[in-house]
Each structure stands twice: as C-alpha cells, then as structure tokens.
C-alpha cells in the first residue's frame, strides 16, 4: 500500500474512533455528506495508464474561517481511498465574518496500472450528525 499526499499535512494523531478526528491544529475530516447531499465526480470508465481526476466536495459548516485542507489518497491498486480534510484558517481574524457555507472541491488524480474494476472510497463525515461517513464508487479500467 502506498500513501500519497496531494497537499502536505502533518498528522498529529492516527485515525481513531472519534467522529471529529483531529489530524493537526485545526485539521478535521471534511464533511462530505451535508444534509443528505453528496457531490462526487468519478468517471465510469478509465484507461490503463491514463490519469483520471476524481473529486469530492466538502462543506465548511463549522466555522466561517475554515479553509480547504489536504486531500489524502491511498492507492491500493483496485481500491483507492480518498480522504478530504479541512483546516481552520491561520489568518488574522477580523472578528466579523460573512456567513455562507463554503464548498471545497477536493481533487485527486490517479493512474491505474491494471485492467478491471476499481473501487474508490471517499471517507469523511456527515452533517449534522457529525459522524464518520464513507461512500464508494466504481470505475471500470480498460
């Protein structure tokens, strides 16, 4: 199993059972199911050796200063795990902020080396339950 980081992240704690896993200062698993809505883009098919871009939306629901964090991808051949994280901004705070719910597009590019069915699992949280959530899509690699 190889683990790739599309963006640098320091992991302060291993994944545990805490629904809000703290993975460093202000780093949390992304909310990828928000009030029933999941936004994932995965192609149905892919070619061996060709890069494929997949994406999942996370929702900045907890703090108006939250920003998009890293996207961790674990590629095990016929199973790819995508884990989006979001981060509390380190910017100075004005004390007053606008109040939308931000959407963050977490993208990953993967290359498959073998033909066959590949499963892509997205792992994050669901809101407002604030509990772990994962969903899976499949890609036929030709």
């Amino acid at each position, binding site marked *: 199993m190889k683990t790739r980081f599309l963006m640098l992240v320091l992991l302060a704690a291993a994944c545990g059972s805490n629904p809000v896993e703290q993975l460093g200062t202000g780093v949390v698993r992304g909310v990828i199911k928000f009030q029933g809505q999941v936004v994932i883009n995965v192609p149905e098919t892919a070619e061996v050796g060709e890069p494929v871009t997949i994406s999942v939306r996370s929702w900045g629901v907890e703090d108006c200063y939250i920003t998009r964090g890293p996207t961790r991808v674990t590629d095990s051949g016929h199973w790819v795990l995508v884990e989006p994280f979001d981060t509390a901004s380190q910017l100075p705070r004005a004390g007053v902020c606008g109040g*939308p*719910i931000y*959407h963050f597009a977490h993208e990953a590019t993967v290359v498959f080396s073998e033909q066959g069915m590949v499963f892509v699992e997205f792992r994050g949280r669901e809101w407002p339950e604030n509990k772990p959530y994962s969903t899976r899509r499949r890609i036929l690699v030709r």
Partner: protein
Amino acid sequence: MRKKEDIDVVMAEVEKLSVPSDAVIVEHDPNVMRGSTDSLRGTVRPVVGGVQIQSPYFTCTLGYNVDHSSSNYWYFVTNSHCTSQFGKSWGDDVGQPTSGSKIGDEVADPDLFDHDDDDDCPPGVNCRRSDAALIKYSTSDWKHGRVAWPGDTGTLVFSSTAEITSDGTPVQGYWVFKVGRTTGLTYGQVTDVCWTGPVGYQDRFEQWYYVTLICQARAQYSQGLGDSGSPVVWPYYAGHVVAVGLHWGGSPDTAGFSPGAAWRDELGEEVGATLYTDYGHSPPPSVTIDDGPSIVHPDWYCTWHASASGGSPPYSYTWSGVLSGTGSTVGGILSSSGDLRVTVEDDAENTDTEYKYITVSESAPYHPNCAEK
C-alpha cells in the same frame, strides 16, 4: 386555502360527509401557499424569500424577490459573498435548493470602491455599502413579495409565508426577525444602524479577503453559516412584515445586515432601475383566450378557454360581454355578435383583460368547441 375553486372542492367534500354546510366555515387565507409544509432547506416552489439557494461554491439563503422597475425581467437578491466574487458578477448559476436545480444567473454585483472613490471608505481598504448581488430568474415559478414564515423559532418547516407590506429601514431598538436556511426564524433587537467595519470572506478561489462594509445595521438575533442572504424584517401586523435588510453574517454575539435602502440603492444604480421587494409591486398577470371559435352558428353551444400566466397565481377568471361566467372556461349559445371579454385577477389583485370579437353567422364553419343544441 387559495381561491374560490378550492373552497368549492372543500365544501363538496363536506357535503359528501353529510355535514351541514352552514356548520362549516371555510376561509381564504392568502398567506397559506399550499396544503403541505415545506422546509427552508428543501425544494420550494413557488420560490420565496428565506429559502436555501446554492451555487457551485456556496450554500446560502435567498433574500427577497425583486421587482426591477424598468424591465419585464424578475430577480432576487442574496449576498454578494454568496457569489464567485464580492464586487464582480461572474454570471454564477444559482439553484434552489441545490445547484442542480437552477433558478437564475447572477447579473449585478457592484464594484468595490476605495477612499479615492468615496470619502466614506476608510483609507487603505475596499468598501461596499451593502453585501448584495442581484440574480435574474430563469424560471417563472416564484412569488413576489413574500418570505417563508416558519411557525416558530427552532423549526425549519413552514406552511405559510409573510407578505412584505413595504420596504423600510432599520431603527435602533426595534425587534427584527430573520428567516434563514440554517437557523430558521430568529429575532433580536437592533443595536446599531450605522456600523462600519471589515468583514472577512473567502472567494471561490479560496482566497481570504476583507471588505469594509459602510453603515451597516447590527442586531442580536441568532444566525449560523448558510444564513447569508436571509431577509431581515420587522413585523407589521399578522402575516405582514416590512423588509428592513439583508443578513450577511456577524460575530458570535452580534448579527449584521445591510439596510434595505443600502442594497436597493447600490444594486438599483448598477442596473439603472428602482428595486422593490413589497407585494404591491408584484408583476401583473397576462391572459389570453387560447381556445374557442371566432364565428359561431346561432344554434350552436360553444365554449371558450382562457389561460393566465405571470403575476402571482392563483388566478380568478371573470367572463363578460356576449357571455358571462367564472372559471377558465365559459360556454353558451350566442344570439348576437359582440365582444367576449375575460378578466383575470391574480393573488396580488392585479388584473389583465383580453377581448375577442365573436361573429354569429348562419354560415359559421365547424369548430370542435361547438355542438348543435
């Protein structure tokens, strides 16, 4: 209960149950939109203020439906920061409740300005007088002059709407109500009517920026992420409110909103029109007689049908001239030629009338709407 036809349906059901009709009172309540309830976060049609909207980048709340005085197009307002970029229109697609159900495109989002442009803007920062952008409807399924009105605080479910009686301005000490997709109906007292300060935002490119909002109102109602763009109103009388502002965010202890006059002036100047949110500026309906003969035989019973569109449904139809009646269809035998008129009145009491001259002739051609009597 919406209109006379609906009342007739209810009374027919009452009669089937052998309940004396004089034992039942059925009233028309113009504030009830439909028999079922809706969630501020769900699909709401016709679209009203206070419900969830979404672009590819943000989830927010629709503020008000907007009448643009010099065009036949219709709009709604939400926060500028709920679009791709504060102070620039990128023509964002906006959906209700989610981006997949598009209802409009962003068309106006006035530029930020600085101290050189306007002395009111402090040196070294970018300013606006409101956090507002105008979205042009791409659907006709909306209702002007109304905001969703949950029955109580703590719920996102609503079965009625409040009618916007007029556009007003916030007054210090007054109690205002906010209706938003995250925290629903909340209320609090106005603490400031002209606060100026920086507000932090993140744009579609995930870049942080600050805009100094000039002369904003602040109040003590609860709010949460996603409430951006919510209508802020004060109650006028039962079921009726005055629109006083557009919520944009705040700090944990204070909510902020752009006063109604500020966002209407800024956006109105951008589009060259006066903007209104009140029910009295609802669009007029349009009616056409879309089915029926122009020439009839004196022995034939014929029918004509009219269709209304636009305005504020539901509609009521009144026929006059050579025939009289109510409902979208009228029928009868004509003894002499003349005008057949239909007047449609919508829920906002706006009307439109269509005329059709009907000739009575022994040599009338066949028409499928006619039968010999």
